């Protein structure tokens, strides 16, 4: 599997650490209801098809949001997590 790091270019997946769903970007407010926190910390979808997840490129230290298809393994898009976060997406 090949993943394009926005900083370094296309790389073998062995250079990356897999974290999990990009839901982790949307941290609730400190005073949010416990249900919101449970959703954020524990509840995950297991989609057959499109998914967005977080990968860490160990070589440059970038956290990358990878949009990919779990059925075909196609990687559709990659972007820096910090860019997505700052753009408020």
């Amino acid at each position, binding site marked *: *599997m*090949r993943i394009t790091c926005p900083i370094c270019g*296309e790389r*073998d997946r062995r250079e990356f*650490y897999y*974290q999990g769903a990009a839901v*982790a*970007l949307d*941290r*609730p407010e*400190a005073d*949010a209801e*416990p249900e919101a*926190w449970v959703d*954020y*910390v*524990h509840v995950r979808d297991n989609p057959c098809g499109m998914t967005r997840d*977080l990968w*860490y490129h*160990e070589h440059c*230290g*970038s*956290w990358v949001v990878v949009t990919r298809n779990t059925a*075909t*393994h*196609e*990687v559709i898009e990659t972007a*820096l*997590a*910090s860019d997505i*976060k*700052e753009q408020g997406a």
Partner: protein
Amino acid sequence: MRIEGKGLIDRGQQINFQFDGHSYQGFGGDTLASALLANDIALMGRSFKYHRPRGVLSAGSEEPNALVTTGLGAAQEPNVRATTLELHEGLVTKSQNRWPSLGFDLMSLNDWAAPFLGAGFYYKTFMWPKALWEKLYEPVIRNAAGLGALSGKHNVETYEKAYAHCDLLVIGAGPAGLLAALTAARAGADVILAEEDTRTGGRLNAETLEVDGKPGAVWAEEITAELAQMDNVRIMTRTSVVGAYDQGTFGALEKVPHDVSMRLGAPRECFWRIVAKRAVLAAGAIERPVAFRNNDRPGIMTAGAVRAYLNRWRVATGRNVVVFGNTDEAHRTVADLQDAGVHVSALVDARHHAKCDLDVPFYAGAEVCDAGGGKRLESVTIRTAKGTENVQADCLAMSGGWNPTVNLTCHMGGRPTWDRDIAAFVPVDGAVPGLSTAGACQGDFSTHKCLEAGVAAAQGALDDLGLKRADVVAPAAEDGVYDIYPVYAVPGKGRAWLDFQNDVTVKDVKQAAVENFQSVEHMKRYTTQGMATDQGKNSNVAALAVLADATGRGIPETGTTTYRPPYTPVSIASLGAGAQCKGFAPERFTTSHKATQEKGAPFIEAGLWYRPSYFPKAGETHWRQSCDREVNMVRNAVGVCDVSTLGKIDVQGPDAGAFLDFVYTNAFSTLKVRRVRYGFMLREDGHVMDDGTTARLSEQHFVMTTTTAAAGQVMRHLEFVHQCLVPQMDVRFTSVTEQWAQFAVAGPQSRDLLNDLLDTPIDDESWPFMACGEVSIGGVKGRLFRISFSGEHAYEVAVPSRYGDSLFRTLMTKAEALGGGAYGMEALNVLRIEKGFITHAEIHGRVTAYDIGMGGMVSGKKDCIGKASAARPGMVEESRERMVGLKPVGEVKELIAGGHLFDKGAEAVSANDQGYITSVGFSPTLGHNIALGFLKDGPARHGEVVRMVEHLNGVETLCEVCHPVFFDAEGGRTRG
């Protein structure tokens, strides 16, 4: 028998080799199989289950029968296919799965017992008594059935792995692959041409067909020569592409020729990961054997193999050959044999309409239905509409048609489709993104069509790559029509083999269907058809045709089993190349490693690091003696310990303080410059992730320490929190673990020792507890932290790594002069347990701040990672297992980490479990064992006596629950 003619062998190069202890000669260019056949050796192995005599079936990597063991001693390699094993001087080989010899194999008694050994016999036969399965049945069966064996010794050979990138990967260098590579190369694409054989050309090397008016092999050599001269082409022979993976990644195994691999340091095999923007599969096709009674006799082989041995290696596979087929290739086989002067006694063509213009006894609409002989074929029985006829023969060339090698197109979930016209499965377009197919592997069986398909596939790839098409035209070549009458299994009594490698017969497949294993995947597993080294390359299609027939379905409805990588066997050694021994776990050494070794200290692994356990002194015979002495030394004088392995992360930026507030439970923005603070961080689920101290060197500059094992995890976590949660914060992190050598100097005399070294001495006022700052040691700029993991008046002093060795030796010498010395991990552990300090033995991933008695350190004034989850009900209940100290009070004094805690009178079963012990040490300070552990509602139970039970060692100890700080609870010694 070797015959006249050129072929593709070098008669000038005579090669001596051994098979089963006998010496033979072959020529350069021979495989073991061709050389043995040239020496009239037809018997090369014994079958898996029945130990039937077996000869070579094929001339390629699909070979199921002729498996041998090569080499001697540790480097012995089993299950090497004789058909692909290049002959080299001094090659030693032996046959497998026979005892005492290949000619006389006692286990062939199994063949007489065959009626009892059909599909699934072991599931049915060895049911009772259950206890005998592991002790008796399985070992006996495993011993009787099988392939070659490993030496059982450590393999000292070198293996390698490598990576390659290209625009176009062409898999297979037959006519289609060669022209695909040439077309792409002439257009300027970066091309890798991978071929599993030792030479390019594919079937052209085995046939007498012409291309462009020249012998096919000559044409192939010319094209190869042109490719070899181009800078943008890499030709990789002896390289089998074994798997297709995501995003154009392919796995390939390269076998290094013997003369090269014998050079010092050269590998035997190299496992390649090839990343290709586009790929063309030109893998060719594999000929199908036909199942009929006794079709496994040595001397019966595929017609394509007979032509290959004849044309490429100039070996006649028999003196009296019968040819049996269902396409025009049977006729071509006869013609080739007759041209070479080999007698052909019959041509049997299953097609009723077939005509024959050769001078040979011809049987149209007929089939071979039995074979006679033992260790060598002696006769075949031909059945026609008129009856049966016996014909003498020592070789039968059989062909049931060709199966396109679709394997790689199915590695990403694709399924091939059935093509009725050629009676075979063909690949589906787009099954592997970026990969197209060309030639025989997509069902084009004429040479000209293969050549055209090679050009077309390359042109398509060039379009995709945005390169201008090259002007290549497929040259003139054979362009026959593939006219097949499908024959999979000839009806009749007796055993007819489908899968030679696993001894699976037509009867077995029918039996599976009868017993309702009707899905092809079930049939495979019930009969073992399609397993082992050939993975059913020779048998899959015929077996599922038989299954389809037995279940009343068509072949397309029956479908195929799943094709999985690897296409050909790959040694674990090549997959794991570079990861053997220390390569599996590289060693990290501290700057004090050498000095520590010189002191005779045994090492203990901490992650990849090696740290000293203890520093034995003369006269000490037990580690506890050294450990006790070192603990006393720190408590009474001064000790020195390398703590460089702890993770050190430089945190800088205007928002550094605010960021640390967010990752740590307690506040760091309020920390004064030149001060250190202890902190711990939580995971977002509320459990403790790691702990350590962080020093503020200047307003915007902090240095964080992590535990040794968690350094990488914490670094990743910091980057995660910053980039994914608070990217607006202006802060950066760098790991500086290896930049600094850091030593703990601990004990009442620690300051005296340091003042002997520091260019400017310190005192309690300039350097109070938890102070830090820059210091100068002999002109070298270092850092000094007054922190303590031992509970004593202690410091950690850091210098750039290149000074580490020197500083450690100096510290050790000066400590010894003060009645102290170096201490190791054992003493460090005892010192911290005495003080109730935690390590990852305690913060093992399932404990909260509340559990370790530090709930108060989670600041109420600010948010931090994990705070919300840590506050959930259930995370702060008194009944949770919480940290306590434990000391033995009964007769038994032993405490063991991992032991569980029970109420004094309760039975030691999990339902009564009250907690467990995490750390244990013998405290020389207190004179008994002490432990840290977790106990339900522990802090409320100080003074209570509980029972530790450790089932592994059968130890039961009564212990008193106490506060986890065993020594100097007020901390006076640290501050003093």
